[in-house]
């Protein structure tokens, strides 16, 4: 299953807070 990557840090932080889930931030130089 593809990962639904977010690209807005503040929105992802808000989503994590609302859901109680931890946040995974992936910083990459690979082609996206």
């Amino acid at each position: 299953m593809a990962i639904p990557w977010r690209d807005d840090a503040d929105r992802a932080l808000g989503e994590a807070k609302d859901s109680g889930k931890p946040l995974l931030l992936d910083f990459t130089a690979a082609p996206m």
Partner: protein
Amino acid sequence: MYPDPRVDSFINESFIPARFHVKTHPEAMARFGADWTPTILILDSEGHERHRIEGFLPNDDFLAQLHLGLAHAAFTAGKFEQAAERFEKIVRDLPATDAAPEAQYWAGVARYKASNDGAALKATADAFRERYGDSTWAKKASIWAS
């Protein structure tokens, strides 16, 4: 997508995932102090960093590090039983990874924090006599022996 489907599944189940490219999101790299790629940060739901993975890792080691981050997030949230189970899962399912000795150490700490029973620490020190005895984590646990 990561090369190992176990990684995709675990991320989907366990985290809110966000990805930033070094060229298109340099501000995100600066904000979170990511100076190199690949870097993975695991933040708790309040946004506090709980685990950092810098550089490439083979599949099993990478998966174990993700589990370690999730376990540390549970630990710092005071969910010690849950944290212990997650640390123990690393030792059980990914025993040959570099994360496993660290997980064995923190499993003992989490069991102690959950029970306030020092026997959990002694049992951990004993476990290091059986496995991972050459690790830094065995040295840290050695104070609990005797």
